[in-house]
């Protein structure tokens, strides 16, 4: 079976500094993969390379067999990869449901003229988008907050809202950058359940996370980065006992 996402020898440098060096790994369809490593190891850079925010200096990134590097971010999203951000990037001054509607955008068609004329198809589409947005909000458990401003949500809920927005794009692969940041243990537990539900829906998940307990519970496979280089890959239990990983990630003595 072909991997859904396939990174092959991806390298990214910033003015002489190698942020990501020759990283290769695959994400199988329907799996939950964790990308871990100490702060500054280049995990978020890998995410930005996948989503087209950065263009790699070399190497290839294949999604369903198609090359992603060089493609515009919005194209990558509409081809089926959605993401959340490490530092929450919601539209803070807009309502919760409007935030989710942003995700619906790439699955909609109507333009300026149909909006001005308010054609029946445009109205149907708007209604459908609104329903989809509400469904995704309900999925992450935020439907009751729909009309609240995004800025008024707690950090944990803002993380969930970002996930709802990502889901509204109808992704095959969702990549979550530290989804548990700012969550208390109860919320973290709910997040683990949510990730399981994503898997049930058939959505592949790639995530960066510091909370090791979450990673161990949620992921089927881990990829470990240190200084932009992959130092380990495999099942959580195996990675956990890898001495290099322990030294790099869990702290030196």
């Amino acid at each position, binding site marked *: 079976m072909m991997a859904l996402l396939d990174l092959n020898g991806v390298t990214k440098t910033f003015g002489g*500094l190698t942020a990501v060096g020759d990283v290769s790994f695959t994400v199988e369809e329907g799996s939950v993969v964790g990308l871990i490593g*100490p*702060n*500054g*190891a280049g995990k978020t850079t890998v995410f930005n390379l996948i989503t087209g925010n950065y263009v790699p200096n070399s190497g290839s990134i294949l999604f369903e067999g198609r090359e992603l590097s060089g493609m515009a971010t919005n194209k990558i999203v509409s081809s089926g990869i959605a993401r959340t951000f490490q530092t929450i990037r919601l539209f*803070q001054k807009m309502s919760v449901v409007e935030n989710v509607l942003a995700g619906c955008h790439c699955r909609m068609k109507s333009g300026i003229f149909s909006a001005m004329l308010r054609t029946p198809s445009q109205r149907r589409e708007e209604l459908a988008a609104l329903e989809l947005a509400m469904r995704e909000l309900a999925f992450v458990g935020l439907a009751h907050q729909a009309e609240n*401003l995004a*800025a*008024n*949500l*707690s*950090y*944990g809920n*803002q993380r969930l809202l970002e996930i709802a927005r990502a889901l509204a794009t109808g992704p095959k692969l969702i990549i979550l950058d*530290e989804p*548990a*940041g*700012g*969550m*208390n*243990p109860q919320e973290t537990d709910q997040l683990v359940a949510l990730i399981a539900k994503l898997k049930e829906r058939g959505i592949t998940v790639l995530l960066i996370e*510091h*909370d*090791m*307990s979450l990673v*161990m519970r949620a992921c089927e496979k881990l990829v470990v980065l240190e*200084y932009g280089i992959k130092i380990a890959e495999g099942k959580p239990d195996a990675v*956990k006992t890898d001495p290099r990983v*322990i*030294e*790099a*990630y*869990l*702290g*030196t*003595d």
Partner: protein
Amino acid sequence: MRLEIKDLHVKYGNVGVLHGVNLTVEEGEIVTILGANGAGKSTTLMSISGLVKPSSGKIIFGGEDITKLKSHKIVERGVAQSPEGRRVFGTLTVDENLLLGGFTNFDANHKAKTREWIYHLFPILKERATQLAGTLSGGEQQMLAIARALMARPKILLLDEPSLGLAPILVKTIFETIREINETGVTVVLVEQNARAALKLAHRGYVLEVGKIVLEDSAETLLANPKVQNAYLGGG
């Protein structure tokens, strides 16, 4: 001088980040604050330095309420910080960065001595003195950030993730240096991702979770605490 934080609440907009943080740091101690990303560690340090104004609560340093003081006054009282992400002045030289660190220090003689001491602590910075800070490697920048804070000759030094993105060998050096600094009588508050290393260095530690202190104990006890091990030491 003792630092005391009483029931500190901080809000960003409508969202609370700190919900009643209490902690004390005794003179000469190294205290570490542990917690997940987003738990409010950096916010706590920024509140101490006066860059974030708390909605309620008090910060008392050396018996003086510094909660409402402007940040430069707080630095003058002897509180210096090496912030998260280093935030060195990239287009200024290493020397200029150090000069700025000693901004509140007017005594030229004293300043020269401090610089000597810093060059002794971080010999690499002496070599790099005229280089732009932005061209330094990550580790060198981190050293510069700490050195810059030391230039103020602080009574208490706040360090926010000094090991971020550093090679283990460098982390070791930096932590050793922190100990050395502490031994000269500077109180240290250390926020660290690298919990194990931090707890080995510190005398005491606090665990912050979603804006609240949930644990407080001596470093050894925390290191042995299964809950801490599970959450921050990768299940031990």
